[in-house]
Protein backbone atom coordinates (compact mmCIF):
# COMPACT_ATOMS: atom_id res chain seq x y z
CA UNK A 1 0.00 0.00 0.00
CA UNK A 2 1.23 3.50 -0.76
CA UNK A 3 1.77 5.80 2.21
CA UNK A 4 -1.02 8.27 2.89
CA UNK A 5 -0.60 12.04 2.75
CA UNK A 6 -1.59 13.54 6.08
CA UNK A 7 -3.50 16.86 6.33
CA UNK A 8 -3.25 18.74 9.63
CA UNK A 9 -6.57 20.27 10.71
CA UNK A 10 -6.33 23.06 13.26
CA UNK A 11 -9.46 22.86 15.42
CA UNK A 12 -11.29 25.81 16.95
CA UNK A 13 -14.57 25.43 18.76
CA UNK A 14 -15.07 22.01 17.28
CA UNK A 15 -14.50 23.12 13.69
CA UNK A 16 -11.50 22.74 11.39
CA UNK A 17 -10.13 26.20 10.47
CA UNK A 18 -10.95 27.08 6.86
CA UNK A 19 -7.26 27.78 6.17
CA UNK A 20 -6.51 24.17 7.18
CA UNK A 21 -9.08 22.86 4.70
CA UNK A 22 -7.20 24.65 1.88
CA UNK A 23 -4.48 22.04 2.39
CA UNK A 24 -6.74 19.21 1.20
CA UNK A 25 -6.50 20.09 -2.49
CA UNK A 26 -2.71 20.41 -2.24
CA UNK A 27 -2.43 17.06 -0.47
CA UNK A 28 -4.54 15.44 -3.19
CA UNK A 29 -2.39 16.94 -5.91
CA UNK A 30 0.79 15.66 -4.23
CA UNK A 31 -0.70 12.28 -3.38
CA UNK A 32 -1.35 11.32 -6.96
CA UNK A 33 -4.09 8.91 -7.97
CA UNK A 34 -3.22 5.95 -5.77
CA UNK A 35 -2.09 7.38 -2.41
CA UNK A 36 -4.83 8.11 0.10
CA UNK A 37 -5.26 11.51 1.76
CA UNK A 38 -6.13 11.36 5.44
CA UNK A 39 -6.94 14.05 7.99
CA UNK A 40 -5.68 14.70 11.51
CA UNK A 41 -7.47 16.59 14.28
CA UNK A 42 -6.84 16.89 18.02
CA UNK A 43 -8.74 17.93 21.13
CA UNK A 44 -11.87 17.01 23.05
CA UNK A 45 -14.08 17.93 20.09
CA UNK A 46 -11.93 16.10 17.56
CA UNK A 47 -14.68 13.75 16.43
CA UNK A 48 -17.06 16.62 15.68
CA UNK A 49 -14.33 18.46 13.79
CA UNK A 50 -13.51 15.36 11.74
CA UNK A 51 -16.86 15.81 9.97
CA UNK A 52 -15.43 18.92 8.30
CA UNK A 53 -12.87 16.73 6.56
CA UNK A 54 -15.56 14.29 5.41
CA UNK A 55 -17.51 17.19 3.90
CA UNK A 56 -14.58 17.80 1.55
CA UNK A 57 -14.05 14.18 0.63
CA UNK A 58 -11.44 13.18 3.19
CA UNK A 59 -13.14 10.15 4.69
CA UNK A 60 -10.39 8.77 6.89
CA UNK A 61 -9.50 10.99 9.82
CA UNK A 62 -7.06 10.31 12.66
CA UNK A 63 -8.43 11.79 15.87
CA UNK A 64 -6.34 12.47 18.97
CA UNK A 65 -9.42 12.96 21.15
CA UNK A 66 -7.61 14.41 24.12
CA UNK A 67 -8.85 17.37 26.18
CA UNK A 68 -5.24 18.22 27.07
CA UNK A 69 -4.82 19.36 23.46
CA UNK A 70 -7.72 21.86 23.46
CA UNK A 71 -5.63 24.86 24.39
CA UNK A 72 -2.15 23.41 24.25
CA UNK A 73 1.03 24.97 22.89
CA UNK A 74 2.02 23.87 19.40
CA UNK A 75 4.81 21.72 20.85
CA UNK A 76 2.21 19.41 22.41
CA UNK A 77 0.27 19.24 19.13
CA UNK A 78 3.53 18.32 17.37
CA UNK A 79 3.84 15.34 19.74
CA UNK A 80 0.37 14.11 18.83
CA UNK A 81 0.89 14.71 15.11
CA UNK A 82 4.19 12.84 15.12
CA UNK A 83 2.60 9.87 16.87
CA UNK A 84 -0.23 9.87 14.31
CA UNK A 85 2.12 10.25 11.36
CA UNK A 86 4.21 7.31 12.56
CA UNK A 87 1.21 5.07 13.16
CA UNK A 88 -0.25 5.87 9.73
CA UNK A 89 3.06 5.30 7.95
CA UNK A 90 2.77 8.67 6.27
CA UNK A 91 5.85 10.41 4.91
CA UNK A 92 4.26 13.73 3.90
CA UNK A 93 2.21 16.17 5.92
CA UNK A 94 0.45 19.23 4.52
CA UNK A 95 -0.77 21.98 6.86
CA UNK A 96 -2.84 25.04 6.02
CA UNK A 97 -1.45 28.51 6.56
CA UNK A 98 -2.81 28.84 10.08
CA UNK A 99 -0.53 30.20 12.79
CA UNK A 100 -0.19 26.73 14.35
CA UNK A 101 0.18 25.09 10.92
CA UNK A 102 3.28 27.14 10.21
CA UNK A 103 4.80 26.58 13.64
CA UNK A 104 3.90 22.90 13.62
CA UNK A 105 6.10 22.15 10.62
CA UNK A 106 9.01 23.88 12.36
CA UNK A 107 8.64 21.49 15.31
CA UNK A 108 8.21 18.51 12.96
CA UNK A 109 11.51 19.38 11.26
CA UNK A 110 13.18 18.19 14.46
CA UNK A 111 10.67 15.84 16.05
CA UNK A 112 9.71 13.92 12.88
CA UNK A 113 13.05 14.63 11.14
CA UNK A 114 11.19 16.08 8.19
CA UNK A 115 12.35 18.46 5.49
CA UNK A 116 10.07 21.46 5.86
CA UNK A 117 8.86 24.62 4.16
CA UNK A 118 6.27 27.28 5.02
CA UNK A 119 4.38 29.83 2.94
CA UNK A 120 4.16 27.40 0.03
CA UNK A 121 2.38 28.75 -3.06
CA UNK A 122 3.09 25.83 -5.41
CA UNK A 123 4.12 22.24 -4.72
CA UNK A 124 5.01 19.36 -7.03
CA UNK A 125 6.19 15.84 -6.44
CA UNK A 126 7.92 14.19 -9.36
CA UNK A 127 9.52 10.76 -8.89
CA UNK A 128 9.32 11.24 -5.15
CA UNK A 129 11.13 14.60 -5.18
CA UNK A 130 9.14 17.35 -3.54
CA UNK A 131 9.70 20.87 -4.79
CA UNK A 132 7.96 23.94 -3.44
CA UNK A 133 7.72 27.52 -4.52
CA UNK A 134 7.33 30.25 -1.93
CA UNK A 135 7.20 34.01 -1.79
CA UNK A 136 10.15 35.62 -0.05
CA UNK A 137 11.27 39.18 0.73
CA UNK A 138 7.70 40.21 1.47
CA UNK A 139 6.62 38.94 -1.93
CA UNK A 140 9.25 40.93 -3.83
CA UNK A 141 10.81 37.66 -5.00
CA UNK A 142 10.09 33.95 -5.01
CA UNK A 143 12.18 30.85 -4.61
CA UNK A 144 11.95 27.20 -5.50
CA UNK A 145 13.27 24.76 -2.92
CA UNK A 146 13.88 21.05 -3.05
CA UNK A 147 12.98 19.18 0.12
CA UNK A 148 15.41 16.40 0.84
CA UNK A 149 14.89 13.39 3.05
CA UNK A 150 12.46 10.61 3.68
CA UNK A 151 9.78 12.74 5.30
CA UNK A 152 8.45 16.21 4.51
CA UNK A 153 6.06 18.63 6.12
CA UNK A 154 4.87 21.80 4.42
CA UNK A 155 2.57 24.65 5.38
CA UNK A 156 0.84 26.39 2.50
CA UNK A 157 0.27 30.11 2.23
CA UNK A 158 -3.29 31.25 3.02
CA UNK A 159 -5.39 32.04 -0.08
CA UNK A 160 -2.66 30.78 -2.43
CA UNK A 161 -4.74 27.76 -3.42
CA UNK A 162 -8.42 27.64 -4.37
CA UNK A 163 -10.85 26.80 -1.56
CA UNK A 164 -11.72 23.10 -1.28
CA UNK A 165 -14.70 21.72 -3.17
CA UNK A 166 -17.50 20.02 -1.23
CA UNK A 167 -17.56 16.26 -1.83
CA UNK A 168 -19.51 14.85 1.10
CA UNK A 169 -18.76 11.22 1.78
CA UNK A 170 -18.56 8.60 4.50
CA UNK A 171 -16.42 9.24 7.56
CA UNK A 172 -14.20 6.66 9.23
CA UNK A 173 -12.65 7.89 12.44
CA UNK A 174 -9.49 6.28 13.77
CA UNK A 175 -8.56 7.13 17.32
CA UNK A 176 -4.87 7.72 17.82
CA UNK A 177 -3.16 7.78 21.19
CA UNK A 178 -1.41 10.98 22.17
CA UNK A 179 0.89 9.19 24.57
CA UNK A 180 2.90 10.96 27.20
CA UNK A 181 3.08 14.70 26.88
CA UNK A 182 6.17 16.14 28.59
CA UNK A 183 5.20 18.30 31.57
CA UNK A 184 7.28 21.20 30.21
CA UNK A 185 5.08 21.34 27.10
CA UNK A 186 1.88 21.24 29.13
CA UNK A 187 2.88 23.91 31.65
CA UNK A 188 1.81 26.96 29.61
CA UNK A 189 -1.77 27.88 30.02
CA UNK A 190 -4.15 29.79 27.75
CA UNK A 191 -6.24 32.02 29.97
CA UNK A 192 -8.42 33.92 27.51
CA UNK A 193 -9.16 34.53 23.81
CA UNK A 194 -10.38 37.90 22.58
CA UNK A 195 -12.21 38.19 19.27
CA UNK A 196 -10.02 39.49 16.45
CA UNK A 197 -9.84 43.18 15.70
CA UNK A 198 -10.22 43.76 11.96
CA UNK A 199 -7.28 46.11 11.80
CA UNK A 200 -4.62 43.99 13.41
CA UNK A 201 -2.95 40.59 13.71
CA UNK A 202 -3.70 37.87 11.20
CA UNK A 203 -6.91 39.79 10.51
CA UNK A 204 -4.71 42.08 8.47
CA UNK A 205 -1.81 39.87 7.43
CA UNK A 206 -3.95 36.91 6.39
CA UNK A 207 -7.01 38.66 4.95
CA UNK A 208 -8.05 37.89 1.36
CA UNK A 209 -8.88 41.57 0.82
CA UNK A 210 -7.28 44.60 2.44
CA UNK A 211 -8.50 48.19 2.12
CA UNK A 212 -5.92 50.74 3.31
CA UNK A 213 -6.24 54.47 3.85
CA UNK A 214 -3.62 57.21 3.75
CA UNK A 215 -3.15 60.87 4.52
CA UNK A 216 -5.58 61.69 1.73
CA UNK A 217 -8.39 60.89 4.20
CA UNK A 218 -7.52 64.18 5.95
CA UNK A 219 -8.32 63.13 9.51
CA UNK A 220 -9.39 60.45 11.97
CA UNK A 221 -13.06 61.25 11.63
CA UNK A 222 -13.03 60.61 7.86
CA UNK A 223 -11.21 57.29 8.12
CA UNK A 224 -14.53 55.48 8.49
CA UNK A 225 -14.91 55.85 4.69
CA UNK A 226 -12.13 53.25 4.34
CA UNK A 227 -13.61 51.09 7.08
CA UNK A 228 -17.08 51.18 5.47
CA UNK A 229 -15.64 50.09 2.13
CA UNK A 230 -13.71 47.32 3.90
CA UNK A 231 -16.84 46.17 5.73
CA UNK A 232 -18.79 45.97 2.44
CA UNK A 233 -16.08 43.65 1.09
CA UNK A 234 -15.51 41.70 4.36
CA UNK A 235 -11.97 43.03 4.14
CA UNK A 236 -9.35 43.90 6.75
CA UNK A 237 -8.37 47.54 7.23
CA UNK A 238 -4.83 48.84 6.80
CA UNK A 239 -3.21 52.26 6.82
CA UNK A 240 -0.11 54.11 5.70
CA UNK A 241 2.39 55.28 8.27
CA UNK A 242 1.17 58.86 7.80
CA UNK A 243 -2.11 57.69 9.35
CA UNK A 244 -0.65 55.69 12.22
CA UNK A 245 2.03 58.30 13.03
CA UNK A 246 -0.69 60.94 13.24
CA UNK A 247 -2.58 58.64 15.62
CA UNK A 248 -5.68 58.44 13.43
CA UNK A 249 -5.49 54.68 13.84
CA UNK A 250 -3.24 52.43 16.02
CA UNK A 251 0.17 51.26 14.81
CA UNK A 252 -1.22 47.73 14.35
CA UNK A 253 -2.94 49.01 11.16
CA UNK A 254 0.32 50.06 9.48
CA UNK A 255 1.31 48.37 6.23
CA UNK A 256 4.88 48.68 4.97
CA UNK A 257 8.52 48.37 5.78
CA UNK A 258 8.10 49.18 9.46
CA UNK A 259 4.58 47.79 9.65
CA UNK A 260 3.01 44.62 8.35
CA UNK A 261 3.67 42.90 5.05
CA UNK A 262 0.42 41.87 3.41
CA UNK A 263 -0.22 39.95 0.25
CA UNK A 264 -3.96 39.57 -0.22
CA UNK A 265 -5.87 38.70 -3.37
CA UNK A 266 -7.03 42.31 -3.57
CA UNK A 267 -5.44 45.44 -2.07
CA UNK A 268 -7.23 48.76 -2.36
CA UNK A 269 -5.12 51.85 -1.57
CA UNK A 270 -7.19 54.93 -0.81
CA UNK A 271 -5.45 58.32 -0.61
CA UNK A 272 -2.02 56.70 -0.36
CA UNK A 273 0.81 58.15 -2.46
CA UNK A 274 2.81 54.93 -2.75
CA UNK A 275 6.13 55.70 -1.03
CA UNK A 276 8.66 52.86 -1.39
CA UNK A 277 8.37 52.06 2.33
CA UNK A 278 4.64 51.50 1.87
CA UNK A 279 5.04 49.58 -1.37
CA UNK A 280 7.42 46.96 0.06
CA UNK A 281 4.60 45.89 2.39
CA UNK A 282 1.95 45.35 -0.30
CA UNK A 283 3.37 45.03 -3.84
CA UNK A 284 3.02 41.28 -3.77
CA UNK A 285 -0.77 41.55 -3.53
CA UNK A 286 -2.37 39.77 -6.47
CA UNK A 287 -4.52 42.67 -7.65
CA UNK A 288 -3.94 46.27 -6.58
CA UNK A 289 -6.45 49.11 -6.94
CA UNK A 290 -5.46 52.73 -6.31
CA UNK A 291 -7.81 55.63 -5.68
CA UNK A 292 -5.95 58.94 -5.66
CA UNK A 293 -6.59 62.49 -6.91
CA UNK A 294 -3.04 62.86 -8.23
CA UNK A 295 -2.56 61.00 -11.52
CA UNK A 296 1.21 61.23 -10.96
CA UNK A 297 1.15 59.42 -7.60
CA UNK A 298 3.64 56.52 -7.63
CA UNK A 299 0.97 54.12 -6.37
CA UNK A 300 -0.44 54.05 -9.93
CA UNK A 301 2.84 52.51 -11.16
CA UNK A 302 2.24 49.33 -9.15
CA UNK A 303 -1.57 49.26 -9.31
CA UNK A 304 -3.53 47.12 -11.77
CA UNK A 305 -6.58 49.39 -11.78
CA UNK A 306 -6.65 53.06 -10.96
CA UNK A 307 -9.31 55.67 -10.38
CA UNK A 308 -7.98 59.22 -10.53
CA UNK A 309 -10.40 61.29 -8.51
CA UNK A 310 -11.54 62.67 -5.20
CA UNK A 311 -11.75 59.84 -2.72
CA UNK A 312 -14.53 61.62 -0.83
CA UNK A 313 -16.72 61.14 -3.90
CA UNK A 314 -15.38 57.84 -5.22
CA UNK A 315 -15.21 55.80 -2.02
CA UNK A 316 -18.83 56.25 -0.85
CA UNK A 317 -20.03 55.46 -4.39
CA UNK A 318 -17.85 52.37 -4.46
CA UNK A 319 -19.09 51.17 -1.06
CA UNK A 320 -22.68 51.57 -2.24
CA UNK A 321 -21.96 49.73 -5.49
CA UNK A 322 -20.20 46.87 -3.69
CA UNK A 323 -23.14 46.49 -1.31
CA UNK A 324 -25.56 46.51 -4.26
CA UNK A 325 -23.48 43.98 -6.23
CA UNK A 326 -23.30 41.67 -3.21
CA UNK A 327 -27.00 42.04 -2.51
CA UNK A 328 -26.58 43.67 0.89
Amino acid at each position, binding site marked *: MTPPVLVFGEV*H*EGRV*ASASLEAIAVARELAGPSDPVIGFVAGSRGEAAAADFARFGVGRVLVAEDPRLDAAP*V*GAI*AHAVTAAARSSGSSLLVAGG*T*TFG*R*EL*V*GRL*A*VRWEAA*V*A*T*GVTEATRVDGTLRVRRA*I*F*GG*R*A*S*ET*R*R*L*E*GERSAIAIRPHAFPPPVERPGALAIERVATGDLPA*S*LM*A*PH*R*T*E*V*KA*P*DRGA*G*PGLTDAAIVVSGGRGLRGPSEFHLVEDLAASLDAAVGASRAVTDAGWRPA*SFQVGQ*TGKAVSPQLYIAVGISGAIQHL*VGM*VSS*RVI*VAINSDAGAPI*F*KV*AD*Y*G*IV*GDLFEIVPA*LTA*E*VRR*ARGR
Partner: protein
Amino acid sequence: MEIVVCVKPIPEAETRLRVGADGTTFDAEGVKFVLAGYDESAVEQALLLKEAIPGSRVHVISAGPSPRTDEVLRASVALGCDLATCVDLSSANSAADPIAIARALASALATVPHDLVLCGKQAGDDEAGLVAPALGELLGVPDFGYVVDLRWDAARKLLKFQRWGESGLELWEAPTPCVIGLQQAWNDPRTAKLPAILKSRKAPIARAAPPAGPTSPSSRPERFELPPPRLGARLIEYKTPQEAAEKLVKLLREEAKVFP
Protein backbone atom coordinates in the same frame (compact mmCIF):
# COMPACT_ATOMS: atom_id res chain seq x y z
CA MET B 1 16.61 36.64 34.25
CA GLU B 2 18.96 35.38 31.57
CA ILE B 3 17.42 36.53 28.30
CA VAL B 4 18.75 35.42 24.93
CA VAL B 5 17.75 37.14 21.68
CA CYS B 6 18.45 35.46 18.36
CA VAL B 7 18.95 37.90 15.49
CA LYS B 8 19.45 37.53 11.76
CA PRO B 9 21.18 39.85 9.30
CA ILE B 10 18.96 40.49 6.27
CA PRO B 11 19.26 42.86 3.29
CA GLU B 12 17.94 46.33 4.16
CA ALA B 13 14.39 46.92 2.94
CA GLU B 14 15.33 49.37 0.17
CA THR B 15 17.66 46.82 -1.50
CA ARG B 16 17.06 46.38 -5.20
CA LEU B 17 17.06 42.61 -5.37
CA ARG B 18 19.03 40.94 -8.16
CA VAL B 19 19.37 37.30 -9.09
CA GLY B 20 22.72 35.86 -7.97
CA ALA B 21 25.26 34.28 -10.31
CA ASP B 22 24.18 30.67 -9.77
CA GLY B 23 20.49 31.56 -9.91
CA THR B 24 19.64 29.88 -6.60
CA THR B 25 19.63 32.96 -4.41
CA PHE B 26 19.93 36.74 -4.51
CA ASP B 27 23.10 38.58 -5.39
CA ALA B 28 24.60 39.76 -2.08
CA GLU B 29 27.28 41.91 -3.75
CA GLY B 30 27.12 45.45 -2.38
CA VAL B 31 24.01 44.67 -0.33
CA LYS B 32 23.80 46.25 3.12
CA PHE B 33 22.72 43.79 5.82
CA VAL B 34 20.73 45.00 8.81
CA LEU B 35 18.86 43.63 11.81
CA ALA B 36 15.65 41.96 10.58
CA GLY B 37 12.54 44.00 11.39
CA TYR B 38 10.94 41.29 13.53
CA ASP B 39 14.23 40.90 15.40
CA GLU B 40 14.21 44.63 16.22
CA SER B 41 10.94 44.00 18.03
CA ALA B 42 12.52 41.00 19.78
CA VAL B 43 15.53 43.06 20.93
CA GLU B 44 13.19 45.80 22.14
CA GLN B 45 11.15 43.21 24.07
CA ALA B 46 14.32 41.81 25.65
CA LEU B 47 15.44 45.26 26.75
CA LEU B 48 12.00 46.08 28.21
CA LEU B 49 12.14 42.87 30.28
CA LYS B 50 15.69 43.60 31.38
CA GLU B 51 14.62 47.03 32.57
CA ALA B 52 11.66 45.53 34.44
CA ILE B 53 13.49 42.63 36.12
CA PRO B 54 16.47 43.62 38.30
CA GLY B 55 19.63 41.60 37.71
CA SER B 56 18.70 40.53 34.17
CA ARG B 57 21.11 40.17 31.29
CA VAL B 58 20.47 40.15 27.55
CA HIS B 59 22.71 37.95 25.43
CA VAL B 60 22.34 38.39 21.66
CA ILE B 61 23.25 35.51 19.33
CA SER B 62 23.42 35.41 15.56
CA ALA B 63 24.03 32.31 13.43
CA GLY B 64 24.97 33.15 9.87
CA PRO B 65 27.86 34.13 7.67
CA SER B 66 30.33 36.44 9.40
CA PRO B 67 30.90 39.44 9.12
CA ARG B 68 27.21 40.13 8.39
CA THR B 69 26.38 38.62 11.76
CA ASP B 70 28.84 40.92 13.54
CA GLU B 71 27.11 44.01 12.14
CA VAL B 72 23.73 43.06 13.62
CA LEU B 73 25.30 41.86 16.87
CA ARG B 74 27.00 45.25 17.29
CA ALA B 75 23.76 47.03 16.41
CA SER B 76 22.04 45.03 19.18
CA VAL B 77 24.80 45.83 21.68
CA ALA B 78 24.45 49.52 20.78
CA LEU B 79 20.75 49.21 21.66
CA GLY B 80 21.58 47.83 25.11
CA CYS B 81 22.27 44.09 24.85
CA ASP B 82 25.02 42.98 27.25
CA LEU B 83 26.77 40.08 25.54
CA ALA B 84 27.14 38.97 21.91
CA THR B 85 27.90 35.61 20.34
CA CYS B 86 28.35 34.69 16.69
CA VAL B 87 27.98 31.19 15.27
CA ASP B 88 29.75 31.48 11.94
CA LEU B 89 27.90 29.61 9.20
CA SER B 90 29.98 30.74 6.27
CA SER B 91 28.99 27.65 4.39
CA ALA B 92 26.22 29.11 2.25
CA ASN B 93 24.23 25.88 2.27
CA SER B 94 23.48 25.79 5.93
CA ALA B 95 23.01 29.57 6.20
CA ALA B 96 20.17 29.26 3.68
CA ASP B 97 18.43 26.54 5.67
CA PRO B 98 16.35 27.77 8.63
CA ILE B 99 16.59 24.40 10.37
CA ALA B 100 20.39 24.44 10.16
CA ILE B 101 20.28 27.94 11.67
CA ALA B 102 18.09 26.65 14.51
CA ARG B 103 20.53 23.78 15.13
CA ALA B 104 23.46 26.21 15.23
CA LEU B 105 21.63 28.42 17.73
CA ALA B 106 20.71 25.41 19.85
CA SER B 107 24.33 24.25 19.97
CA ALA B 108 25.45 27.73 21.09
CA LEU B 109 22.74 27.72 23.75
CA ALA B 110 24.23 24.57 25.27
CA THR B 111 26.83 26.80 26.95
CA VAL B 112 24.84 30.04 27.28
CA PRO B 113 22.51 30.31 30.29
CA HIS B 114 18.97 31.06 29.17
CA ASP B 115 15.64 31.37 30.95
CA LEU B 116 13.94 32.93 27.98
CA VAL B 117 14.82 32.84 24.27
CA LEU B 118 13.36 35.56 22.05
CA CYS B 119 13.36 35.61 18.25
CA GLY B 120 11.56 37.51 15.54
CA LYS B 121 8.66 35.26 14.54
CA GLN B 122 10.10 35.16 11.04
CA ALA B 123 12.69 37.11 9.04
CA GLY B 124 11.89 39.44 6.16
CA ASP B 125 14.25 37.65 3.75
CA ASP B 126 13.23 33.97 3.69
CA GLU B 127 9.92 34.62 5.51
CA ALA B 128 10.11 31.06 6.84
CA GLY B 129 9.21 31.43 10.54
CA LEU B 130 10.84 28.10 11.31
CA VAL B 131 13.65 29.01 13.70
CA ALA B 132 11.56 29.61 16.84
CA PRO B 133 9.53 26.37 16.68
CA ALA B 134 12.55 24.27 15.63
CA LEU B 135 14.58 25.81 18.45
CA GLY B 136 11.77 25.04 20.91
CA GLU B 137 11.80 21.41 19.83
CA LEU B 138 15.62 21.19 19.98
CA LEU B 139 15.66 22.66 23.49
CA GLY B 140 12.66 20.58 24.58
CA VAL B 141 10.66 23.62 25.64
CA PRO B 142 7.41 25.19 24.39
CA ASP B 143 7.49 27.90 21.72
CA PHE B 144 4.98 30.57 20.85
CA GLY B 145 4.94 32.68 17.69
CA TYR B 146 2.94 35.77 16.71
CA VAL B 147 3.52 37.21 20.19
CA VAL B 148 2.90 40.85 21.02
CA ASP B 149 3.53 42.21 24.50
CA LEU B 150 5.37 39.95 26.91
CA ARG B 151 5.51 40.66 30.64
CA TRP B 152 6.99 38.98 33.70
CA ASP B 153 4.76 38.34 36.67
CA ALA B 154 7.44 38.40 39.39
CA ALA B 155 5.10 37.28 42.18
CA ARG B 156 3.94 34.18 40.33
CA LYS B 157 7.18 33.67 38.37
CA LEU B 158 5.30 33.43 35.08
CA LEU B 159 5.59 34.99 31.66
CA LYS B 160 2.34 36.59 30.51
CA PHE B 161 1.88 37.35 26.86
CA GLN B 162 -0.56 37.90 24.05
CA ARG B 163 -0.43 35.96 20.83
CA TRP B 164 -2.36 36.27 17.57
CA GLY B 165 -3.93 32.89 16.99
CA GLU B 166 -6.53 31.66 14.55
CA SER B 167 -9.47 32.61 16.74
CA GLY B 168 -8.20 35.97 17.91
CA LEU B 169 -5.87 37.47 20.46
CA GLU B 170 -4.92 34.73 22.92
CA LEU B 171 -3.69 35.46 26.44
CA TRP B 172 -1.16 32.97 27.82
CA GLU B 173 0.80 32.30 30.97
CA ALA B 174 3.94 30.20 30.83
CA PRO B 175 6.83 29.37 33.12
CA THR B 176 10.39 29.65 31.86
CA PRO B 177 12.24 28.33 29.96
CA CYS B 178 10.48 28.93 26.68
CA VAL B 179 11.03 30.28 23.17
CA ILE B 180 9.00 33.25 21.97
CA GLY B 181 8.69 34.54 18.37
CA LEU B 182 7.75 38.21 18.35
CA GLN B 183 5.52 40.02 15.88
CA GLN B 184 7.01 43.02 14.13
CA ALA B 185 6.42 46.68 14.83
CA TRP B 186 4.07 46.57 17.78
CA ASN B 187 6.46 47.95 20.38
CA ASP B 188 8.13 50.85 18.54
CA PRO B 189 11.76 49.69 18.84
CA ARG B 190 14.19 52.26 20.21
CA THR B 191 17.06 53.63 18.12
CA ALA B 192 20.67 53.58 19.28
CA LYS B 193 22.44 56.75 20.42
CA LEU B 194 25.66 57.74 18.69
CA PRO B 195 28.01 57.20 21.67
CA ALA B 196 26.56 53.70 22.14
CA ILE B 197 27.03 52.96 18.43
CA LEU B 198 30.67 54.08 18.60
CA LYS B 199 31.26 52.02 21.73
CA SER B 200 29.63 48.92 20.21
CA ARG B 201 32.30 48.86 17.48
CA LYS B 202 34.75 47.66 20.09
CA ALA B 203 32.34 45.32 21.87
CA PRO B 204 33.72 41.79 22.22
CA ILE B 205 31.94 39.14 20.16
CA ALA B 206 32.29 35.56 21.39
CA ARG B 207 32.71 32.94 18.66
CA ALA B 208 30.92 29.61 18.94
CA ALA B 209 31.71 26.77 16.57
CA PRO B 210 28.86 25.51 14.40
CA PRO B 211 27.59 22.07 15.40
CA ALA B 212 29.90 19.26 14.37
CA GLY B 213 28.82 16.43 12.15
CA PRO B 214 26.93 16.38 8.89
CA THR B 215 24.65 19.37 8.49
CA SER B 216 22.61 17.94 5.68
CA PRO B 217 20.20 20.72 4.80
CA SER B 218 16.58 19.74 4.98
CA SER B 219 15.73 22.02 2.10
CA ARG B 220 17.89 23.51 -0.59
CA PRO B 221 17.11 26.61 -2.66
CA GLU B 222 17.23 25.82 -6.38
CA ARG B 223 15.94 28.94 -8.06
CA PHE B 224 15.50 32.60 -7.13
CA GLU B 225 13.11 34.63 -9.25
CA LEU B 226 11.98 38.22 -9.45
CA PRO B 227 8.43 38.96 -10.58
CA PRO B 228 7.89 40.64 -13.94
CA PRO B 229 7.69 44.41 -13.49
CA ARG B 230 4.18 45.78 -13.07
CA LEU B 231 3.06 47.71 -16.14
CA GLY B 232 1.19 50.49 -14.38
CA ALA B 233 -2.47 50.91 -13.63
CA ARG B 234 -5.24 50.75 -16.15
CA LEU B 235 -7.06 54.01 -15.40
CA ILE B 236 -10.83 53.83 -15.33
CA GLU B 237 -12.59 56.52 -17.38
CA TYR B 238 -15.78 57.89 -15.93
CA LYS B 239 -18.16 60.82 -15.82
CA THR B 240 -19.70 60.24 -12.40
CA PRO B 241 -18.37 58.52 -9.26
CA GLN B 242 -21.18 55.95 -9.66
CA GLU B 243 -19.91 55.08 -13.12
CA ALA B 244 -16.34 54.68 -11.80
CA ALA B 245 -17.61 52.42 -9.03
CA GLU B 246 -19.70 50.28 -11.41
CA LYS B 247 -16.82 49.86 -13.85
CA LEU B 248 -14.37 48.91 -11.10
CA VAL B 249 -16.70 46.33 -9.56
CA LYS B 250 -17.29 44.82 -13.02
CA LEU B 251 -13.53 44.58 -13.69
CA LEU B 252 -12.82 43.06 -10.28
CA ARG B 253 -15.61 40.56 -10.75
CA GLU B 254 -15.22 39.57 -14.41
CA GLU B 255 -11.61 40.26 -15.34
CA ALA B 256 -9.54 40.03 -12.15
CA LYS B 257 -11.93 37.56 -10.52
CA VAL B 258 -11.20 38.80 -7.02
CA PHE B 259 -14.63 40.19 -6.15
CA PRO B 260 -15.99 38.37 -3.08
